């Protein structure tokens, strides 16, 4: 348990030296987004194809308040978490009534509904142009407009979010959600109201998505329409699957791989999503546990090799 923490802290320190601070910041934001999704996907076994609903809603609401009322950064984050959780409660309530393919299609359809509201409501969201001009107000003399300062702030919030998620998955709730993934019928029979627990997972996942959404809006100073679109929902899903949905750290690694590929390789080669597609096919066919599983297989293989 100690080693991942040390590796993570090293990554937090080294990342801004390797890539531009904006990219480094985006990696941790996307990781928070992935943590929220993975509570649904990896732990509860619910494939949500609509996570950007919560990400985008929080970004719009908090962004709007930041822009027009210059609210405090922490208040903005708190509101984002609240909006993420509330929108997830609404969407989740409708989705948990169904399972399997119908569940996935419902998350997708409701995502599209939110997208079209954002698209049409141009006076608030700016429609296709997005909602620009979102400030990063200074707090207690700390100037967040400095990219490195903002990076440190986001990295600290990410570590906090990771700690909270670890507590949650190691709590009874974490075990109950996994029991629902393993066998919903028996989970119900031993005394758990399965739809209600699924809804709780949605709300927690939505809160994480909301936090990520507000940080994202403040990072780029704009809420683009894509932030609430299905491509974003797909991206976080890809990233989490590539990293490994079976473990707590999978989405973090997935976020690193996904953002790094999309930002660094895309400048060299416009067809970079092809690489992503290949990576995805490999994961689905050979490595269901993603990068995390590849890593642990590598270590098993190394330690099983007789020392020369």
């Amino acid at each position, binding site marked *: 348990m100690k080693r991942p923490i040390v590796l993570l802290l090293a990554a937090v320190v080294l990342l801004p030296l390797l890539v531009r601070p904006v990219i480094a910041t985006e990696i941790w934001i996307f990781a928070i987004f992935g943590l929220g999704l993975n509570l649904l996907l990896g732990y509860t076994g619910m494939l949500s194809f609509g996570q950007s609903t919560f990400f985008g809603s929080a970004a719009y609401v908090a962004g709007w308040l930041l822009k027009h009322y210059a609210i405090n950064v922490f208040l903005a984050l708190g509101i984002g978490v609240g909006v993420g959780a509330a929108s997830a409660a609404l969407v989740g309530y409708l989705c948990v009534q169904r399972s399997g393919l119908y569940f996935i299609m419902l998350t997708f359809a409701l995502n599209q509904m939110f997208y079209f509201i954002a698209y049409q409501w141009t006076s608030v969201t700016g429609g296709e142009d997005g909602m620009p001009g979102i400030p990063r107000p200074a707090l207690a003399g700390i100037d967040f407009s400095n990219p490195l300062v903002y990076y440190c702030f986001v990295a600290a919030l990410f570590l906090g979010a990771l700690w909270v998620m670890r507590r949650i998955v190691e709590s009874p709730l974490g075990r109950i959600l996994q029991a629902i993934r393993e066998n919903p019928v028996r989970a119900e*029979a*031993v*005394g758990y109201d399965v739809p209600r627990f699924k809804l709780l997972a949605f709300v927690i996942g939505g809160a994480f998505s909301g936090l990520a959404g507000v940080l994202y809006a403040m990072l780029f100073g704009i809420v683009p329409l894509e932030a609430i679109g299905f491509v974003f929902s797909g991206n976080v899903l890809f990233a989490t699957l590539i990293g490994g949905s079976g473990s707590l750290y999978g989405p973090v690694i997935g976020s690193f791989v996904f953002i790094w590929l999309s930002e660094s390789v895309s400048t060299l080669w416009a067809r970079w999503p092809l690489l992503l597609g290949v990576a995805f096919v490999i994961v689905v066919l050979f490595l269901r546990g993603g990068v995390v599983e590849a890593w642990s297989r590598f270590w098993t293989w190394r330690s099983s090799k007789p020392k020369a």
Partner: protein
Amino acid sequence: MAILETQSLTKAFGALTAVNGVSLAVEAGTLHSIIGPNGAGKTTLFNLLTGTFAPSAGRILYDGRDITGTPASRVAHLGLARSYQRTSVFPAFSLYDNVWTAAFATGASWGGLLWRPADRYPEVDERARRALADVGLAERSGQPAREISHGEQRQLELAIALAAAPRVLLLDEPAAGLSPEETRRMVALVRALKGRYTIVLIEHKMDIIMSVSDRISVMHFGSLIAEGTPAEIQRNPEVRRAYLGGMAA
């Protein structure tokens, strides 16, 4: 006094009436078996008793209270626990986590549900360990459920029901698919549980039924056709006709 009672309980699936006007009373502390040919409606009756299905008509009384229509997740909290004919466990979980999950559900308190580490519930831990020990799986507690043998999975199936600390155990063919040796062990286990719990047992193997039951109810095409002690049931001509297709009648 009857701890579990049904009054004209009926369940219809379209044109098929799987359970038809069943009135049954299970006395507290007894082992009450339900027998009948395949498709007689025994498992459907269990599904009604545990709230998996809502009945089309009739009532279910538990401890004098009307629990008709109570959903499955609530029924478990009332003190009714079931095991399944087709093994239904949490495959990726260790045996310990399997019974822990059931023990926590009906534990004294869900305080710290989102926050307290799952290994800091001593009362739940003790109940989980006892359930595994009761069925003789204490030494395998760390092993994933998908890796143990079919016979051991049947024992785990029972342990999950026991971990809920129920008053009434509903056992749906606990010896299904077991070898003669495993069956002997399962019968010994059920016999050991007798008296500690009120047990309702569905079983096909007549020798088991006749040796462990206090009372037997016989179902045929969804209806109860006889009830009595094992000796009375063995003499009953209608039961013999249902089982032997009229040849012995």
